[in-house]
């Protein structure tokens, strides 16, 4: 009986104490018609050894191709201590720290994490994680509506330069509450928010403007100007940012005049593996005036009976287990383990290390763009400063090219055809500090061969 410690003696003695004759007796309040005799859809048990073999075969089948996609999930080096530490049983197998005195480890890590996120974003207060970047943006939109009492429109300006998957999530999550999501167009020349599209909203009751930085295409938006526009038009600013970039880019709290009100994003780049899409870790920070609208757990520092410092969950009146239908969000379980991983990642990498990572990303992506655009039939879609992603335009449809590259063990980028048909044959590529010069060359050679071969054919 895997994981069950009961001996036949135990079962006998326990049933006797209960006053039941059999295990089946214990289910005698369930209407008999509801009892099922078996589960044909669940295979028979395998030993750990057999499942290990099966899993190893499947993982090997997925392999480790050379990856040049970012698009919301970034392949960074994960320092070896990170997962050695967070998989320690005391972290890994603990619940949400409801019993503070027996959970000071988790609580102090939450407090440290909040401090780091606040520091990175230059905002006052951070929660201790949301699910992921996409859902964090959705929560930010809902939060903005709650926080901006004077605005009655629940209108959020959501630029096309925001990750399209995130925009879909915002739509799905905010749909029930009737938010009005107005799309801001992308300027096809710059790959940034079209100023005209923004200007069209001047004078309207706008609750909040979402500012992605860098945007989905890797381009840097003019966050200062956008924030100033929002201030001038009475709208809050929601910054949707890549956390690694905050080592080198102006933080949301310092944008424009007075900074953004809320910053959110995905802290996956901080020590969390790609892992086919999750678990990642959404972050959210805001100015102190909005703290009571912030969703999610928050750890606070306080003192114990002896006056010694200690940590506890605080401002719980925002949360569902206290406020129920009136809570700031329904979130309960969050992404604690990944929050811990991010904290340890940041402690290890430190300010200088994070800056190096960010700079290496910028440099490597520039090299990648330079190497690929040297090939005939490939050009950069946008000029202007960028972080670690770029859009390339090909002289032919992207999908078959990517499939051919995958056959050579190269994941060559993300095809924008579905989400941005207006961009033509556009490919989103990314190179982090993990891609070496040799990797860039490998890619360039393979692509050159493919494009050349196809051209010759």
């Amino acid at each position, binding site marked *: 009986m*895997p994981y069950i410690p009961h001996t036949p003696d135990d079962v006998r003695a326990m049933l006797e104490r209960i006053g039941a004759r059999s295990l089946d007796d214990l289910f005698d309040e369930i209407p008999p018609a509801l009892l099922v005799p078996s589960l044909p859809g*669940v295979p*028979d*048990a395998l030993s750990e050894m057999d499942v290990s073999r099966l899993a190893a075969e499947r993982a090997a089948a997925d392999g480790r191709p050379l990856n040049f996609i970012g698009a919301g999930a970034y392949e960074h080096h994960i320092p070896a201590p990170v997962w050695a530490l967070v998989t320690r*049983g005391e972290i890994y197998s603990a619940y949400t720290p409801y019993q503070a*005195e027996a959970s000071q480890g988790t609580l102090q890590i939450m407090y440290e994490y909040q401090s780091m996120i606040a520091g990175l974003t230059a905002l006052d207060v951070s929660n201790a994680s949301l699910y992921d970047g996409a859902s964090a943006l959705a929560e930010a939109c809902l939060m903005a509506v709650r926080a901006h009492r004077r605005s009655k429109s629940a209108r959020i300006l959501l630029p096309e330069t925001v990750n399209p998957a995130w925009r879909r999530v915002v739509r799905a999550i905010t749909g029930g509450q009737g938010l009005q999501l107005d799309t801001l167009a992308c300027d096809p020349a710059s790959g940034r928010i079209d100023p005209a599209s923004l200007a069209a909203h001047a004078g309207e009751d706008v609750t909040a403007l979402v500012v992605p930085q860098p945007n989905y295409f890797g381009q*840097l938006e003019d966050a200062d100007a956008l924030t100033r526009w929002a201030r001038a038009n009475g709208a809050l600013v929601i910054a949707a940012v890549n956390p690694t970039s905050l080592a080198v880019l102006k933080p949301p709290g310092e944008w424009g005049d007075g900074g953004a009100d809320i910053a959110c994003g995905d802290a996956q780049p901080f020590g969390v593996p790609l892992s086919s899409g999750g678990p990642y870790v959404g972050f959210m920070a805001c100015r102190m005036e909005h703290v009571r609208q912030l969703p999610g757990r928050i750890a606070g520092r306080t003192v114990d009976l002896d006056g010694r410092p200690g940590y506890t969950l605080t401002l719980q009146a925002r949360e569902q287990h206290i406020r129920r239908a009136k809570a700031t969000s329904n979130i309960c379980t969050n992404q604690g383990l990944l929050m811990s991983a991010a904290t340890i990642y940041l402690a290890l*990498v430190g300010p200088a290390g994070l800056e*190096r990572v960010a700079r290496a990303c910028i440099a490597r992506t520039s090299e990648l763009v330079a190497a690929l655009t040297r090939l005939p039939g490939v050009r950069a879609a946008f000029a202007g400063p960028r972080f670690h992603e770029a859009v390339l335009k090909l002289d032919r449809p992207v999908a078959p090219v990517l499939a051919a590259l995958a056959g050579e063990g190269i994941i060559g980028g993300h095809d924008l055809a579905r989400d941005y048909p207006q961009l033509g044959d556009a490919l989103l590529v990314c190179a982090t500090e993990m891609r070496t010069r040799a990797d860039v060359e490998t890619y360039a050679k393979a692509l050159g061969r493919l494009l050349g071969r196809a051209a010759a054919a």
Partner: protein
Amino acid sequence: MSGSLRKPEPLIFELSRPGRGATAQHPAAEPGGEVPAGYRRRGLPPLPEVSELQAVRHYTRLSQLNFGIDTHFYPLGSCTMKYNPRACNALAMLPGFLGRHPLADAATGQGVLGCLFELQEMLKDVTGMAGVSLTPMAGAQGEFAGVAMIRAYHRARGDLTRTEIIVPDAAHGTNPATATMCGMKVREIPTRPDGDVDLAALDAALSPATAGIMLTNPSTLGVFERRIVEIARKVHDAGGLLYYDGANLNAILGKARPGDMGFDVIHMNLHKTFSTPHGGGGPGSGAVGVGQWLLPHLPVPVVGREGERYRWLDERDLPDTIGRLSGFMGNTGVLLRAWVYMRILGAAGMRRVAEYSTLNANYLLARLVEAGFEAACPGRRASHEFIVTLRREARQLGVTAMDFAKRLLDHGYHAPTTYFPLLVPECLLIEPTETETREELDGFVEALIAIRREAATDAAAVKAAPHTMPVRRLDDVRAARQLDVAWKPEVA
């Protein structure tokens, strides 16, 4: 190791010194990573500067301040704190799984997609549902997906009047909060003293505005709702749908299936029933299952099989989906852990989960009642958990459920859930799970008896507990009033 003369573990920021760093973690400095002036951050972000050893030692020490399943019996009701098999973690973290980008060609992901597809199929079977989507990232997001599907179902039929979700007063807070998030109004109905839903109240609540009802079964009172079939009939007759909050699925796994009870949609907490670790707060997974009529509305992506190949089904395949709830595919790594767990347990193992968790709960309840503690629902079978009310102890000894909970920590047991559900005074919601031994349960009973004895002679000692934890009882009021939620560098 507590109790030493060592000072409390400082904050990582307090260990920081300018110019220090774990430099093995820094990539080589290279030219070319400049940011144009207008976009540039002034100075470096205020992160700690510590050596690698300092970081490792700090977080190792911090971890030791925690209780976890791996160190202590953790009978936290409603949370199913059972053993998280290490195999699940080890296999989900194989390099091939960890390294894959979610948007990489499906051809390079047949391994992981195959596991997820199998998981979908297995979850369909254990819930009795027609389809499963794995994307919700925790129970609450599963609830969201469920209520959103109920909403979509009514709307698709052109029925726009159904704006109310009925929720029993014993429900978990996420239930009403979710209804609100979906733009629904919450109608609360009372629970009877025996733990079952008050049918009269239900009748009164049902109306043409009823979109659906959210039920946990067994309920958060730890008893199985005996008239579930009748309830389902009533709700369906009123045009509403039934939502199953799967937080307590552990109690009936492999024995009875929500689909057979008449539920239309369900979420499962894979981090509870399927034992993926809770990580001090997450991640979880709130996979949802639905009946045939809700299939078109499942959140995307879902894994589909075409011949021998797997691929993601998305909005193009499911145009009536409620949409996308995460940037990629939910908490894939958690799903892999659940897949490993289910493969190791197999079909017979699923049933045993229900049987032995129920055995442990009923044994613990029987022993506590023998010892003179008061069951909240006397005469009822416990499911995999049950409630003891300490109202008598509170009245007679002046010692509350909170005090018992804190003193239990000193005895080496994590506290049960306290003050939930709210309708039971001074309640302890106790869930021992199937992976604990009888000896452990016996020790827990003895500790509760010892605390009650101590309360009779020295209530102050109990009220001041815990005494042996890294900190004594914390000032929660001060925490909320004098908000200190982020470290600030001292002004020099």
